[in-house]
Structure formats: C-alpha cells, structure tokens
C-alpha cells in the first residue's frame, strides 16, 4: 500500500519541522517528504488541505479494561476510541482483573491488541504481585513478555522498604518505575481536594501534602537506589516544585499530568458532578495553574488522557460512592490544543507533549515522521468545532467532566504502520 498525503501542513516537533509539504508512505514506513521517491505510484491519494499532518499521538495512560472489566469497555471499543483520537501508541496500567503480574497475561493482552491491528499497546507490569504491595513481580520475565515499565497504578504502596527494594530491583535491569505519588494514610477515605470546595460541599478531603510527602519519599529513594522513575498524574503545585528541583539536581525523573488536571480544578465539581470524581482529585486553581505552567516550562514532560471508561451506573450515585475516572482518549488532542492556545505556545510545542516527549520517556524511536520510520500518523482539522456528548464518543465510557464543552480540533484520519485505521 502506497499512500500520498498532499497539501497538508506537516508538524513534526521532534524534527523541528512545520510547513506545508507532501508525505509519501510505502511498506508501512515514511518513504519520502516533499518530493515523491523515484517510481512512486500511490494506491491512494489523500488531500490534506487545511489539515495538520502530525505523528500519531502517544498516550501514557489509557485503561482498556481488559482483562476483567469488559462490562465497562472492551479492547475493541477502546482501541477504536484511541485511533478516533489520533492515538497510535498507548500505555495501559496494570490494574486489570487479574492484574498484569504474570507474563502470560501480558502476552495475551499484547496478542489481542495486535490482532486488532490498530494502536500499538504497551502494558505496564504490576510492581508487586496482585498490586498488593507485598511481593515483587518477575519483572525480567514480564519485560520479556512486553512490559515497558512497572507500576503500582492507583493501588496503595504502604511499605516503604518494599518500595525501596522494588526500585533497586527495577534499577538492576534498567527498568523504569511508574509511580503515582500519594501517601496512603493521608489519602484514605478522601474523595476531593482538601480545600475550601470540599469544606463547603462536605466532602472528605485528600490534602495536597499527601502528594508531596509521597513524592519526597520517591525522590529520596531515587537518590538512594539510582532507579529511573516516571511520576504519574501530578496534581499539586508543591509537586511541580519538587519535580523541578529534582530535575535541576540531575535526577532521572520524568512526569505527566492528565488532560483533566490541566484544565479543571475542584470548583468544577459544581453541585456534586460525579464525573469530576477523579484520581488524584482535582485540586485548586493555583495548583492547576502550576501544572499548566509546568507543562510549558518542561518540568512536566507529558500530557496524557488518563483514559478511564466508567459505566454510567457507577456514576449515577452520590459523588462519594461514584467510581473515579473519566474517558479521555478522544479528548487528548483538543485539550492539548486548548492548553496551547490558552498558554500562547506553538502548535508544535503542544504536539511535542503528546508525541516525541512520551516517546522519549518510553525509550521508543517513535513520535516523529522521519524518512524510513514507522508511518504512524494523524490528520486533524485544527479549526473544527465539536461538542463533547455521549454519541460523539467511540469509547464505551461516556463519563467526562467535559460533557457539553465545545472543543476545537478534530481528528480526520489516523494511520498505523501506513494503514488507514480511522477516517471520518
């Protein structure tokens, strides 16, 4: 299959390229830019006039709900949501049922995902067996089975000794440990940011120091063990400051924030909107502003969707009983663009946060459109308006605090390894 995409504005942040140019794909790779290679005859010509041609997006957190939670979503539905959102590579956390703590499970998931021929799936293995925080998993075996790193997802890791050993063991093999910093004691029972909004609404709070205390522990253990850590879903300004300092000290730490936390704060809970029940909780406006600024300055490396499809019934309950999480794969692009417009940064800098930056954290030679490389790309209309509503989402999860929001930016076509996997 040979494809000629013409007249599009190609933005490739990694290669620092932004301009109208044609791109030629052959045998699943980028064959040429600008001029057609000798003897190239396209099977399909795609007119990308007024569209942006970008590397396929890479999402560092997308729950596909398989295995175990197929009633919430299936691999099929969520992989369709991914490519409808322009996401061609995604990382899935290990909090499935059973959890991803055995090589067989990981191989099965990889195989299932591969057979769908859509986005590439990179599972995170569980850091401890059953995410119970007691026994290490067979990290080397899990790595061979396809795990790209090891994580404790949202499960509490109470034992600091075990955390240190896990980091030492991962560092032995050079694996990255993915941790969401939260002190389990301070977070216990909490459902909202411990601040004025939670006080007014009478919701049990999780103080921001639950994050900074856990983060200080992790950063201290990084110095101790030499482990490489990716900090997941930072939520507070104190957290941003700790990561900034650690990076200035030369620690091999990276971090991401979710699209929800980049745009919303605890005020968005409104009158107990259970779609705003998220992990970590939405914090206050100053926290949100620090996260957004951190993403600009580079202290925060990546913007991710933290895609978590939740069944409607699990949200139609009082706020405190609602299952946490929001659907996000199809909102990653428009919310990255919204952040860029509001922060007055370039389109290319925004796309870097969902292409080459996450690729760097994963250690993948991906997220760019260099000649000879995998042809994973996305064509989107940066001027298309659409309203977030249940029927507009391919994901089985329709739960998002952005329901009813007007979005700017719509994916028109997604290609994985040179094949069109989505078009609208």
């Amino acid at each position, binding site marked *: 299959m040979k494809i000629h995409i013409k007249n599009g504005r190609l933005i490739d942040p990694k290669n620092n390229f932004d301009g109208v140019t044609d791109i030629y794909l052959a045998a699943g790779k980028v064959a040429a830019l600008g001029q057609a290679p000798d003897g190239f005859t396209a099977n399909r010509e795609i007119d990308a006039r007024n569209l942006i041609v970008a590397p396929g997006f890479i999402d560092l957190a997308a729950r596909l709900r398989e295995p175990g939670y197929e009633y919430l979503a299936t691999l099929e539905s969520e992989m369709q949501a991914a490519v409808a959102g322009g996401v061609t590579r995604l990382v899935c956390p290990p909090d499935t049922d059973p959890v991803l703590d055995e090589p067989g499970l990981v191989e099965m998931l990889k195989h299932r995902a591969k057979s769908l021929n859509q986005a590439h799936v990179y599972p995170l293995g569980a850091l401890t067996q059953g995410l119970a925080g007691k026994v290490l998993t067979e990290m080397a075996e899990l790595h061979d089975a396809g795990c790209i790193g090891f994580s404790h997802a949202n499960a509490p890791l109470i034992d600091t000794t075990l955390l240190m050993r896990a980091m030492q063991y991962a560092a032995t093999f050079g694996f990255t440990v993915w941790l969401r910093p939260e002190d389990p004691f301070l977070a216990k029972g909490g459902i909202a940011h*411990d*601040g*004025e909004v*939670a*006080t*007014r*609404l*009478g*919701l*049990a*709070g999780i*103080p921001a120091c639950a994050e900074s205390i856990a983060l200080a522990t992790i950063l201290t253990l990084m110095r101790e063990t030499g482990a490489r850590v990716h900090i997941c879903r930072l939520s507070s300004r104190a957290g941003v400051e700790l990561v900034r300092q650690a990076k200035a000290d030369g620690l091999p730490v990276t971090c991401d924030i979710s699209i929800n936390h980049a745009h919303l704060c605890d*005020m968005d809970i*409104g*009158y*107990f909107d259970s779609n705003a029940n998220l992990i970590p909780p939405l914090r206050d406006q100053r926290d949100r502003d620090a996260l957004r600024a951190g993403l600009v300055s580079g202290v925060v490396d990546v913007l991710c969707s933290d895609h978590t499809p939740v069944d409607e*019934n699990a949200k*139609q*309950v*009082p*706020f*405190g*009983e609602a299952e946490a999480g929001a659907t996000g794969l199809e909102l990653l692009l428009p919310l990255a663009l919204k952040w860029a417009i509001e922060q007055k940064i370039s389109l290319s800098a925004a796309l870097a946060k969902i292409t080459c930056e996450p690729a760097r954290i994963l250690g993948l030679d991906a997220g760019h459109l260099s000649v000879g490389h995998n042809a994973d790309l996305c064509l989107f209309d940066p001027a298309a308006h659409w309203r977030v509503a249940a029927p507009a989402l391919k994901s089985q999860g329709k739960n998002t605090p952005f329901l009813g929001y007007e979005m700017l930016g719509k994916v028109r076509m997604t290609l994985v390894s040179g094949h069109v996997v989505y078009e609208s």
Partner: protein
Amino acid sequence: MTPNPQLSEDGALRHLLTIEGLSAKLIHSILDTAESFVSVGEREVKKVPLLRGKSIFNLFFEPSTRTRTTFEIAAKRLSADVVNLNVSASSQSKGETLLDTVDNLAAMGADMFVVRHAQSGAAHLIARHVAPHIHVVNAGDGRHAHPTQGLLDMFTIRRYKQDFTKLKVAIVGDVMHSRVARSEIHALTTLGVPEVRVIAPRTLLPTGVEALGVHVYNDMLQGLKDVDVVMMLRLQNERMSGPFLPSAQEYFKSYGLTADKLQLAKPDAIVMHPGPMNRGVEIDSSVADGGQAVILPQVTYGIAVRMAVMSMLAGTQ
C-alpha cells in the same frame, strides 16, 4: 456552572437541598410562613388541609429519630399521606441503587421525598433525577447540609433575638463532620449576622473554613466572649477518642459548655443544640437544663419550620 438546582427559573423554591444560595428574603419568607404554623400546633385540632392528597415519602438511608419524626408530624399536620422508609434495612441491602429506589417510589405516586443519606450530595442527585412535579427536601446529606435544621435554628434565634444584624454567634464543636454547622453558617451569614465564630480544636475544623465567612477560635474562653447565641454541636461517639481527640474528658474540659464558661457570653445569651446531646461531653447538664437553653423550643419550632418548607414546595400546586 449549572444554575442553582433548588430554585426554579423564576427564583421560587423547587427543592430544599441546602441553605447556600438562598436569599435572605426567601429565608425570612420561610420563617414567616413557619410563624403562621406555630399556632396550629397549639390548637385542639392540629391540622390544616394544605397538602391533602399529597404523598410524602420519608426516605431515610441513615438512622434518625428526631428529624424523621418531626418531618412526619409536620406532613401529617398538613394533611399529607406519609410513608416512612428505613431504606438501610431493605432495598440497599438487596443491592438496589439509590435512583432505582427513588424511581420505584415515584411510580407509586410520590409528590415529595424527604431524604437523609450518609453521602454528601445524595439529595442533589435525587433532585436532578426526579420528574419536575416531585420535590426533594434534604433531611441531612453526609457532612454537607441539613437545611431544615439550619432554618429552625434561625427561627429560634429570631424568636429570641429579633435582629440578626446585631448578633455575635458562636458555633462550638465538631465543625468538620457537621452538616448542621455548615447549614447554620450559611443561614447566619446570609441573614446578615456580622460575627459568626466557630470554636473547636484544630482537628475538628475543616480546611479553609474561614472562606465560609466565619472567625476561628481555638480557645473557647475567648470565643464565647460577649456572644448572643451559643450553638453547640454534637460530638459523635466514634470521634471522642482516636485521631481527632484523645478523650471525651479532655474535650469536655476544653470545649464543653459549662455554666462558668457561659458567663463569658452576654447575660441574655441563648444556648442551642441540634440534639441528641451528649451530656458531660459537649454540654453540662446544668446548662442543658438551665434557663438560657432553648433546646426544647428548637424541637417544637422544627415542626412549624418543616411544615412551612413542605407547604411552600408542594402546597401551591
């Protein structure tokens, strides 16, 4: 943000979910209506026909005696048909969801739900869900709100003190876990009370409570100085000893209301308590039974206030 879900487009009360967002005018009109119902309770035949033919469901997901009973009496005095449901004991244990329970009762012809639930926001959820002709009264949701308690407290204060804009009011005790305190604070600040104080150890004050418009006192002796109204809060048994407090004894010593401490308030200060009281923990018996306590009148007025709320919600249709 969506508009205030308890008001209709013309600003009339559709549901009573929280005092926050109600105007002083609306609160006074509820209190005025309640005033007209006080005499009903003093008559030989304690009934008016305002809600004849209406079905009111008391939907209590949390145990309650006083609140449920006064709602029941209020509804019956308005001639409504009342059904009491102790849901914690029935459908919830069978796994039925809150909204399924509500739908089933609505299908039985409910005109009004009086709801108590352990989760903050439960009454809002039900109010958003029900058909437009059904009204919801929040009888206490988690730590969030207990608006009829707040209103009956205002009614009581108004009876004894008249002008809200000249008062100093102290709320004493477990503010963090108290929906009563939140409703009282919103009511007092809305009615123009210039100085609302909260008195508690730091472990029992929620983060950023000052943003609700109150002055914080950790020292009860300072906090009670020259106040016109002392509103005590109940301390739950499970909080008397643990991470919040070391013991009930130490709490009583620092924050229990005794006759000695009450002397710091104005000589004509009134003492209130939403009940049920823990004598010897948050309040000394000599004060609870003393001349300045208005705790039993609060209960009596609670019926009139709940009659006012229910008749204003459903009586005009």
